[in-house]
């Protein structure tokens, strides 16, 4: 009797799992968000624990260190103000010249700040959850960046949280160019399971002159990412496919392992 009950339960669990795995993508996505929303009360807790850790670290700083940092920030702020003033003049000049030539004026990026609350519990994906969702105007496929460089793009959006697939994940490909003379274009590939901040840059031309230290930036080919977001720096390059193309390894600027604050680009000129 017990054995029969055991097999019946196993069959029920197997059928439920089979049905869930084979659900249509949109239904599975909604169900995933519904189940994941059970963790909503805990999201605040995660943020709170990060804040407590941060404020505890702040307490350990001495007054003289704080004064020194304050002085450094003040100087940096003054320099940035001067740079912003100059940039503003360049932008005005650029807009005037573009109008004269008849080019379409470029819209500045609009960005939404977000906190990383959870990471993917599975080792074979590279995703994070952030604390902004459709309520804040977030939509699927919006690019996400950190202060250092590109992070990834939005894949699923809930009411108050979203899932971001990070660069280096098999589901996140980014068209990028190398900042060399020829501006060679490629597409980012997978990272290694252990070194998440080292990704491949594939489909570069076979004659591409790629050297360690060259910067890699997004190219807006495909229209998913605005042009010019820093991605990383070339570590090394080699010929692949019997010399038909070049493949490079790129060290990402964004520290994917310790992401805390990110920016979702909600609007830009495509």
């Amino acid at each position, binding site marked *: 009797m*017990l054995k029969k*009950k*055991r097999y019946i*339960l*196993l069959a*029920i*669990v*197997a059928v*439920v*799992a*089979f*049905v*869930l*795995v084979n*659900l249509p993508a949109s239904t*599975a996505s909604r*169900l*995933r*968000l519904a*189940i*994941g929303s*059970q*963790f909503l009360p*805990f999201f605040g807790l*995660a943020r709170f*624990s990060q804040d407590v850790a941060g404020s505890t670290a702040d307490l350990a700083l001495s007054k003289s260190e704080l004064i020194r940092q304050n002085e450094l920030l003040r100087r940096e702020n003054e320099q940035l103000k001067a740079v912003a003033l100059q940039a503003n003049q360049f932008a005005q000049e650029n807009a005037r010249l573009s109008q004269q030539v008849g080019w379409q004026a470029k819209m500045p990026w609009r960005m939404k700040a977000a906190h990383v*609350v*959870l*990471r*993917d*519990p*599975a*080792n*074979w*994906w*590279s*995703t994070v*959850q952030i604390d902004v969702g459709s309520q804040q105007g977030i939509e699927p496929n919006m690019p996400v960046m950190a202060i250092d460089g590109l992070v990834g793009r939005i*894949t699923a959006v809930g009411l108050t949280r979203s*899932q971001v*697939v990070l660069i*280096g*994940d*098999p*589901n996140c490909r980014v068209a990028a160019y190398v900042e060399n003379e020829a501006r060679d274009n490629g597409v980012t590939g*997978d*990272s*290694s*399971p*252990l*070194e998440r901040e080292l990704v491949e840059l594939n489909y570069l031309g076979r004659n591409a002159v790629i050297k360690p230290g060259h910067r890699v930036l997004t190219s807006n080919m495909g229209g998913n990412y605005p042009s010019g977001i820093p991605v990383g720096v070339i570590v090394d390059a080699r010929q692949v496919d019997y010399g038909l193309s070049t493949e490079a390894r790129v060290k990402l600027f964004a520290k994917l*392992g*310790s992401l805390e604050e990110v920016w979702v680009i909600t609007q830009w000129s495509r």
Partner: protein
Amino acid sequence: MVTMNPLNTFLILLTAFVVVFVQSASGRLLGTQLDLLPALMVYATLTTGIPTVAALALCGGLWLDSLSANPLGISVLPLAAIGFVLSLRRDLLLGEQSFAQFVLGLMASFAAPTATLLMMLTAGKNPLTGWGTWWQIAIMMLAGGIATPLFFKFFGALAKTFKYQELSSPSFRPDREIRRGRN
């Protein structure tokens, strides 16, 4: 036969919920995201009934997949399979011994991620794998092995807190009483 205790089932499911959340909220250990659900499944199989095992597989698997990029429901089957395979030979397993618990946790923590990966590759998904995956599985095994006896201790302490304790039977036996005097 072990019957289903609603309080025990609730506590196991609550622990699974917290474990999934903590796994997601914490960073990687030696480049690895730990998975303690197989260890919890070993505890559930050796101490509770089949319905609890089924509930843990279903809820734990769905909670894990909801926070991951895994296809929803793919973690349910490996967890259920571990539970059902262990329950077939539960009477023969030395579930009370810490070393046996460690070995069972080790094996379950190897089987769950390996089976999930194989199922995903079979389903045509493209997970991030390489030589580093073996390192990650080794760390997950070790963590699962260590966590299993800890789960037994944790739930043992909870049981002491929430359940009535059994009274030890007195050593007095009327048939062994020495009667003095004459009959």
